[in-house]
């Protein structure tokens, strides 16, 4: 089932990526080509196969509940586009 232009716009909105009309149409064609390739998966019967979520079936480690990171606030803030008094600045959210 090919993606409609409306669906392309909806996905772009979910991904928070602005998309113009001309680009949406070009992307629609490319995405449909890609989904045709991906669709090859549907030919295979995978009933009863356990999904493989990771490259190795490993258990995640547990660690002591103690502080492991040192304070690097200044360093990390130094690369922010806009900051003030140790805070990230964004456009006003609540009027």
């Amino acid at each position, binding site marked *: 089932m090919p993606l409609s232009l409306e669906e392309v716009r909806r996905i772009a909105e979910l991904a*928070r*990526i602005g998309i113009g009309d001309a680009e949406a149409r070009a992307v629609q064609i490319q995405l449909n080509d*890609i989904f045709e390739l991906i669709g090859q998966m549907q030919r295979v019967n995978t009933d009863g196969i356990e*999904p493989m979520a990771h490259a190795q079936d490993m258990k995640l480690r547990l660690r002591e509940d103690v502080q492991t990171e040192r304070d690097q606030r200044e360093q990390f803030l130094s690369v922010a586009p806009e900051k003030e008094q140790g805070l990230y600045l964004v456009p006003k959210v609540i009027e």
Partner: protein
Amino acid sequence: MLNASLKELSAALAQGKISSVELTKLFLDRIQKMGALNAFITVDAEKSLAQAGAADERIAKGDAKPLTGIPVAHKDIFVAKDWLTTCGSKILSNFVGPYDAHVIERFNAAGAVLLGKTNMDEFAMGSSSENSFYGPVRNPWSRDCVPGGSSGGSAAVIAARMAPAATGTDTGGSIRQPAALSGVSGLKPTYGLVSRYGMIAFASSLDQGGPIAKSAEDLALLLNVMVGFDARDSTSIERPAEDYTLDLDKPLSGLRIGVPKEHFGEGLSGDVGKAVEAALAQFEKLGAKRVSISLPSSGLSVPAYYVIAPAEASSNLSRFDGVRYGYRASGYRDLADMYRKTRAEGFGAEVRRRILIGTYVLSHGYYDAYYLKAQKIRRLIAQDFVEAFKQCDLVIGPTSPTVAFRIGAKAADPVKMYLNDIYTTPANLAGLPAMSIPCGFGNGKLPVGLHITGNYFAEARMLNAAHQYQKATDWHARRPAGIEP
């Protein structure tokens, strides 16, 4: 010196035949001369030479390790403190690393010199190194051709002798395919051996860092530095340190090489098939036994990969929102508008495309049909290898279906581009180690890569086979025309 192996360079440094500062200057000059290849995003002579000076002091004190004083070029996906780290993207074009990636820490501790940050497909998404905000990398063997991708900068750097060693990352073939197309050696370790800390994430269940160099012997030395447990990477594997050089000289008699029939069928270019067949014959001469095997699900690796990788990417790349780091668009109405504009302007076309695919396959109502289905196929692909390794020690075939293609040839057709990854994606999906080494030349006198997959943690065995092959042949020592020592 430009063609010397790491062992030779290490000896020259130890014997005082050359200093690290001199060696670093030599390669910095070389980088400048080869500038037209566009293989580097950032070079900072002052920083590199300061590190080289410190290495020389360390050597003088008798405190040198095998890589002390040796310049290493790093893919611009590894965060390095005080170095611009762009990941080939406009959205990180102003990002100066506030800390070191684990891989960078390991090379620093070894006394290696950071020679510069190499060009790459944006966020490692691509098979040609054309998708960079900093422009395409050119293949040293033919400047109209791509070097492969996404670690194309690092592969071109080795091919053109701009550095003795380099790093890359491999999510679906991004170390091995550029190694093949650029005529150099590259290895993707078993998933979990090299820490992902500070390696900018693309698809976390597949991403793995690894070395790119001129020979298997050099790869072994680099792997000794790169591999190591790191608690900051939740999937880092804790196991005793291994010396990957120990088995290099073992004879290959009795080695069982599995040749998967699926990797020699439709889609494989004749010139590549011929070079790979000749390499298999060479392995038989060295005492290896050829076994016919089947990887029945491997044909589905590209479709499964192009669901799983974009899905994980869409989640990982949600962090680039113009708030905490990187580029922020100007002229927005509100917060949502800032996100939309920042991400539309900051990401290139291929990255946007993959985020859209990933968003779709994870969206309500489609998860089972795509993401879950792909994960089930991933299991089938991994099981194929479990069966195969009952019959053989290594799986060998082509790395890429063709030699390097012309810049622009596949840029407009994503599906055509994705099919480059047909032989490399299975190892990522299964989490297995795999490497590519040069095995001859095909159409246009361009290099052909031989793909070697091993069982989990079989890096030493793969390197042993590759080293023995490289002792019997000289494909890895060939240099592009115009690349004088």
